């Protein structure tokens, strides 16, 4: 029975008291490094298909990472689509393509997508393709003729075909039957306050580190692979190119599983704690199970691919991905991403000694340049890069120490949205080894006086800061 009055925490303080624990349980689910529970995941996936009145597919695949799931799932979707739509082959490739050719193209497509994807996420140059070997599988003359003759029209047709090949229908159907229906029913049966407390809190704690990061990594990897495959110089066979182009549509077949813990946190609270007993739960329970027992999944009428969770994940106090000596997030099959306080950066910025000042100054992306400087420390970067001193004075309340203001060179003027200078300070308390930590802070460029710049950080009059009696 659906309640006539919306469920409210005002009527159930005993439920509200369990919110924090429930939220934390789902945050832990998102951040967990446990692999997929394969028996439970098989049952959940079968349940999701049946909930949408679809036949669970015969081909089921477990992989170690969402990137592998995305690439394998989309290329497989491309294979199945070409098999089921032989009449489209002539428009796409200029001729019918045999099953043997389809199968032969899978390996090169996967290899190139992975090769380019890995290089992209590491921030390394994309290795040269091996066009001769892969093109040998098809008629190079036919390929060249097709390519030259059709130009933009063919590209549009190819885009439409790869888009169609990665048909989102399965995901849409299962989601509509399970998650969307339960969301609607839960929102109808509960008041708005309950939504913020679970969904928003879980999402805030996990979104950047899990969902957004997976999305960004997969998107970057598949986009670059596709760009690479469609460059004339690197283009392998048209069938290989077709498959690689399918990879950019990965998100249409994708569900985040444990990465998407926020909605299940909200919906399951009412199932398990508030006891709403909605009829939608009979189908939704499979969605909930799939969010608990595995990470990303790719769903298709012919097959599904389910990924394990990350094998490690590291965040800063603001719960942004961050690690100073290795990948912030890594998966069991070698895919990994490097982050500095929520910014995805090249591997060599993090690992080893980081970047030299010269390397930092040639980085075109201002945000990555800023991360590289922070990794090095402004106190080291300022002298190494030869920044010009504007002013220097004794640090009030910090005997024997000074604060100093530096200009950013023209090459670093784009580091912040507004013009900045750097204030170098020294800690008032000593470290365990007897040294004092030095650090640099950006300040608005209108400052000429280090005291006034430091005072503004505490929203304090400069005259008061100058009278600081003690800094520890």
């Amino acid at each position, binding site marked *: 029975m659906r309640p006539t009055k919306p469920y409210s925490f005002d009527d159930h303080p005993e439920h509200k008291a369990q919110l924090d624990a429930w939220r934390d349980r789902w945050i832990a689910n998102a951040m967990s490094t446990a692999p997929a529970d394969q028996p439970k995941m098989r049952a959940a996936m079968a349940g999701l298909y049946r909930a949408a009145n679809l036949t669970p597919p015969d081909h089921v695949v477990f992989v170690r990472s969402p990137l592998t799931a995305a690439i394998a799932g989309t290329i497989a979707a491309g294979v199945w689509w070409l098999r089921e739509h032989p009449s489209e082959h002539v428009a796409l490739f200029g001729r019918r393509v045999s099953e043997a050719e389809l199968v032969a193209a899978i390996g090169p497509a996967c290899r190139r997508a992975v090769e380019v994807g890995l290089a992209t996420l590491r921030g390394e140059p994309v290795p040269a393709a091996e066009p001769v070997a892969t093109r040998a599988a098809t008629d190079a003359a036919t390929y060249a003729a097709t390519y030259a003759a059709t130009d933009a029209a063919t590209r549009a047709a190819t885009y439409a075909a790869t888009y169609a090949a990665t048909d989102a229908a399965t995901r849409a159907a299962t989601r509509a039957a399970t998650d969307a229906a339960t969301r609607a029913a839960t929102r109808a049966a509960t008041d708005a306050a309950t939504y913020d407390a679970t969904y928003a809190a879980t999402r805030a704690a996990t979104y950047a580190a899990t969902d957004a990061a997976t999305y960004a990594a997969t998107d970057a990897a598949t986009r670059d692979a596709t760009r690479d495959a469609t460059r004339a110089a690197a283009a392998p066979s048209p069938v290989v190119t077709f498959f690689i182009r399918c990879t950019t549509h990965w998100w249409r077949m994708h569900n985040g599983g444990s990465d998407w813990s926020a909605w299940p946190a909200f919906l399951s609270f009412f199932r398990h704690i508030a006891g709403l007993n909605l009829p939608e739960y009979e189908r939704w329970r499979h969605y909930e199970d799939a969010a608990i027992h595995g990470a990303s999944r790719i769903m298709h009428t012919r097959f599904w691919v389910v990924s394990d969770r990350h094998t490690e994940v590291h965040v800063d106090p603001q719960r942004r991905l961050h690690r100073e000596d290795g990948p912030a997030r890594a998966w069991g099959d070698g895919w990994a991403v490097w982050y500095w306080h929520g910014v995805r950066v090249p591997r060599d910025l993090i690992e080893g000694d980081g970047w030299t000042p010269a390397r930092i100054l040639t980085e075109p992306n201002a945000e990555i340049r800023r991360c590289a400087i922070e990794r090095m420390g402004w106190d080291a970067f300022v002298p190494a890069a030869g920044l010009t001193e504007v002013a220097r004075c004794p640090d009030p309340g910090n005997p024997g120490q000074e604060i100093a203001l530096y200009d950013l060179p023209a090459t670093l003027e784009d580091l912040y949205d507004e013009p900045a200078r750097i204030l170098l300070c020294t800690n008032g308390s000593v470290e365990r080894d007897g040294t004092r930590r030095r650090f640099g802070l950006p300040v608005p460029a209108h400052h000429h006086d280090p005291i006034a710049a430091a005072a503004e950080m505490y929203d304090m009059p400069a005259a008061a*800061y100058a009278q600081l009696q003690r800094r520890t």
Partner: protein
Amino acid sequence: MTTVAEAITRHGVAVHDHLPTDVEIPVLTGPQCQGDVAVLPVTTVHPGQPLPAGGVPVVRGEAGGNTHLLLPGSKGVTWAPAVDGDGDLVLGHVTVPAGGVAYLAHPEHSYSGIGPGVYRIGRQREWAGEWRVVAD
């Protein structure tokens, strides 16, 4: 006068063991800073509630450590948490009566003594093209 060792015994907040504990805690009535927390004397009155003996964590570190704890070192110390209009950086106002003292304690910064008067307790912000509050 109170030493760091005596304050640790009395209030239970230990400091990192490389910091000296046999020194007196300076009790000041002027502006002072403890890491990202600033103590600024003000001329306005801010009536508050008695500061609990266990103190008030004015800035709480993420992992439980690194908390700046405001403690009453004598009777009559009051604390008025920030109200709307105080500004984003203001954590509250502490009032120390004549002859009284309050302490700000932090494991990495040791103890700071606050003498009689009314003080704004505020935190630091950082600028990165725009101002934002520092995450400890």
